[in-house]
């Protein structure tokens, strides 16, 4: 009992961090739009990613301050979910479904084709930074497999030929 650590009556010490960089300022305003509610953290991350392309490390302390949570908690949530990116990614994110229904229709071959034609492994970005390819498990288009998603756009019955057409379409869009 003698060793009882004296606890100060102060609140748990939590470093208050104020925003200075543009990304931090953006984080503060996104949090404010969500009423600084911790239960809206996923929505906050989604919105930040939409605005910034990824969640920069420097924003975590200001989010923690805004939501009155520890930095560890914010970091924990960020790293738990596959959707959230901690580093810059390609202009277009191409998700290729690798789940069972698409496997039965040859998604393994499609993935191999994608990796070869874009010269990057799944999870990587093309050298010109235009496309990131990712694996995903189920896009809910299992009757029209294999399925891929580009941004919010879903494609069904995608073979190697159609895949190349879709990618060419993206590059054409960018050129215009």
């Amino acid at each position, binding site marked *: 009992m003698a060793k009882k650590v004296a606890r100060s009556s102060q609140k748990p010490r939590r470093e208050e961090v104020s925003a200075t960089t543009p990304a931090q300022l953006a984080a503060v305003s996104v949090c404010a739009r969500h009423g600084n*509610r*911790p*239960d*809206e*953290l*996923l*929505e906050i*991350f*989604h919105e930040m990613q939409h605005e910034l392309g990824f969640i920069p490390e420097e924003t975590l302390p200001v989010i923690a301050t805004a939501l009155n949570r520890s930095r560890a*908690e914010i970091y*924990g*949530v960020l790293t*738990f*979910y*596959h*959707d*959230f990116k901690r580093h810059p990614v390609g202009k277009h994110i191409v*998700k290729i*479904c690798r*789940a*069972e*229904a*698409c*496997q*039965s*229709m040859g998604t393994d071959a499609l993935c191999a084709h994608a990796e070869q034609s874009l010269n990057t492994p799944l999870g990587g970005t093309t050298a010109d930074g235009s496309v990131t390819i990712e694996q*995903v*498990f*189920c*896009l*809910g*288009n*299992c*009757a*029209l*497999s294999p*399925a891929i*998603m580009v941004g*919010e*756009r*879903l*494609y*069904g*019955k995608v073979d190697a030929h159609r895949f190349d057409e879709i990618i060419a379409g993206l590059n054409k869009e960018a050129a215009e």
Partner: protein
Amino acid sequence: MITVFVPRDAAALSVGADEVATAIASEAKKRKTEVRIVRNGSRGMLYLEPLVEVETAQGRVAYGPVTAKDVAGLFEAGFLEGKSHALGHGLTEEIPYFKNQERLTFARCGITDPLSIEDYRKYGGFEGLTKALAMKPIDIVTEVTTSGLRGRGGAGFPTGIKWKTVHDLKAPQKYVACNADEGDSGTFADRMLMEGDPFCLIEGMTIAGVAGGANKGYIYVRSEYPHSVHVLREAIEVARKANWLGDNIQGSGYSFDLYVRMGAGAYICGEETSMLESLEGKRGLVRYKPPIPAIEGLFGKPTIINNVMSFAAVPIILAKGGEFYKNYGVGRSRGTLAFQLAGNIKRGGLVEKAFGVTTRQLVEDWGGGTASGRPVRAAQIGGPLGAYIPVSKFDVPMDYEEFAKADAMVGHGGVVVFDDTVDMAKQARFAMEFCAIESCGKCTPCRIGSIRGVEVIDKIIADIDRDKNIALLEDLCVTMTDGSLCAMGGLTPFPVMSALKGFPDDFHKPAPNKFLDAAE
């Protein structure tokens, strides 16, 4: 003016429905014909998407699969009068695939404009809620119990019992939460309903709110379903404006409001307690049970959690009575299930049918066999945690208990078909790999067992101490089944063991020759 229907369902869009709608509008303009294009939900005959329908005096006539290039030819053939064309299928409702179904939950899907409350009401919408608003909450619960409805997310827990638990608790705040994190491969019924008939889900959840005494509900939709998120958010706005949500609904004194939350690509968040954590803005770690979520759920408050399909079955149960719904089905599996035919199948789509239908009927009569034209070898039923069943078991009726007896599970009703080129050892390995990727990490059997599972199966495939490693895999599966906190680790052995037992030959092939492969 002639009305033409072109679906806005994500599956239809994935094969060019938007382009078809644009082509029809511009062709009509060119021909100076007035056409009203309605963007409906999908009829569920996904093999015919984009399925274009034309309203005629005889009924709606179907054409599909239509591409933008076919549109000029369709006008030429007189499709606006329902005339014949190579892509024509006659009256939509007479197509055997559609006609032989028993559509209760999906009665409106594909028929109406998903965001039109007038359409919804014209086809029986809000009849269930209107009745519920005039009933005592306990009588609503009794009606749902009578119907025999069981959780459609896969576990099959009686919905009425869940609702009764929440109803009986006294608490200042209760919640309703809808699990729309439809992550299982081979399932798309939730998505189809959310995009094709969102008011049905809204109505079902509102009835749950009234019955359980909750005034707030959340729909947790996976981020892979952006179309569903948009449609639901719009539909909720429309329902609020028409006072089918919000304060004092239709002057009844009951208040209920709904919010949509988007997930972030974690499969585990389809597990109900993980979903609750995620809804609270946390890591999706599975919670210990007890306490069950009905008692301590969202934000620690009593919560009714159901799957989209369970909530969407409720409006018709209230409108037509629990007895009506109960009259469909067999044994203790009452009502209908929306079966989803997926994977290597010629006619993939949604088939709503009473329990008791067999896999063979679904795969052969509706599905027409494989898309590749090769013989069917196996079907995985009930998602990535469901068993692979060989063709010899295709005559077991779809019934929770009968399937359990056959070491399989009906689950969510997803049927993924594989042809004879499938390597079942590879599928078993994938089941473990998937578990390793998607495990929340809270319990050891799931977190580490899945990684060891991949390693052991790799050794079996490579013919390293094969018999010993098969024994080890069986032992590992027992540990995972008995020791995991939730269904993720607890059921992953299901596809693994079913592959091992049902297709032992695939685990005893000569090992791939590494030297030869490397030399290639």
